[in-house]
């Protein structure tokens, strides 16, 4: 194959390294954002995406009012960040294309690595399957069962794992493997 990152010009290696570093930085902050707004446990992910919609009763036949006293502390209680259907549609609309572009960029890096065909195919599949699992899990959690929040976690970890594998192998082959250093 003509495209081989081990033998590529130093400028291309540097471009790929910068791309991987930038994506790595965004992944770190992505993880921090997940910890702030959704969490890393199935229970917290389920609370975020399943939310009250899972247990929402049918609307009453006539409008009813419930009054209850409030304290200032009640107003100060931290809210569970929930994602309703409208927001999930919006999130899916804006995130999935971005994840596709990132998976494609990492996939292009994979094509330049010296890997067995089946490993390369597996890695590319992982890069694209991870966001599908991530967002598929959110939708299934909302509409099928909160237990399926585990899929979102698996998808998130798979995205991180896919990036780390590609980054580690690419950096090693470009800068440390004998053929890489020689180019």
């Amino acid at each position: 194959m003509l495209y081989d990152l081990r033998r590529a010009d130093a400028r291309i290696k540097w471009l790929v390294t910068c791309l991987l570093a930038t994506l790595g930085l965004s992944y770190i902050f992505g993880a921090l954002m997940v910890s702030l707004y959704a969490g890393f446990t199935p229970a917290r992910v389920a609370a975020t995406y399943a939310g009250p919609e899972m247990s929402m009763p049918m609307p009453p036949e006539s409008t009813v009012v419930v009054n209850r006293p409030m304290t200032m502390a009640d107003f100060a209680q931290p809210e569970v960040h929930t994602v309703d259907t409208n927001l999930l549609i919006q999130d899916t609309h804006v995130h999935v294309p971005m994840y596709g572009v990132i998976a494609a960029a990492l996939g292009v890096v994979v094509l330049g690595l010296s890997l067995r065909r089946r490993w390369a195919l597996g890695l590319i599949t992982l890069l694209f399957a991870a966001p599908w699992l991530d967002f598929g899990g959110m939708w299934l959690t909302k509409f099928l069962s909160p237990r399926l929040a585990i899929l979102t976690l698996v998808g998130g970890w798979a995205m991180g794992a896919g990036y780390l594998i590609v980054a580690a192998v690419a950096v090693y082959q470009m800068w440390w493997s004998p053929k890489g250093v020689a180019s």
Partner: protein
Amino acid sequence: MNWIVRAAAIIALLHITPAVVLVKRPEAVQALLPGADAYFAREVHLSDVDAHRLHEVVDWSPEDGVLAFYTGKAGSTIVGALEFVRVDTPHGPIEVAVGFSPDGRIRGVIVTKATVEMKPWVLEAVAGGLTDRYRDLKPGDTPAGAAALAGRTGNLAVYIAGEVDKGVARALAAYGTFYNHVRT
């Protein structure tokens, strides 16, 4: 390379940034229900018919079909009521607190939440006098904060003012239709 630059620009434009609290809820409650020493939540669980009625007026349905009003009292005197209304925008959600005086007019409006991206737009709009434009509006009136800011602030401040207008319109419609007109 051109498509990569374009794709990156589109991603940057579309990505929703994290939410930020501009004013904590307790602070908004104290500002909009001044002097109150007791608070009560009035949760109105809308029937399908009433939810549809509200949707027809302001193109909006509250989350879970429940409108939440908060009433403040000082002793036995009602100080007023307030609502927290969320508006989903293409840039993420904002939350608007709308406080009413006992006579049913708007006492004040506070934007309590936005996103990192929208925060400077909100601050510019508020600095331009946006929230003052809502004072004394009553149910049936149309908020026109965006129109008032047009030409006096940046386009993004005017844009966010339009979103705040939606929140205030929803609060006015909900308050006017359901706050005092449903039996407990």
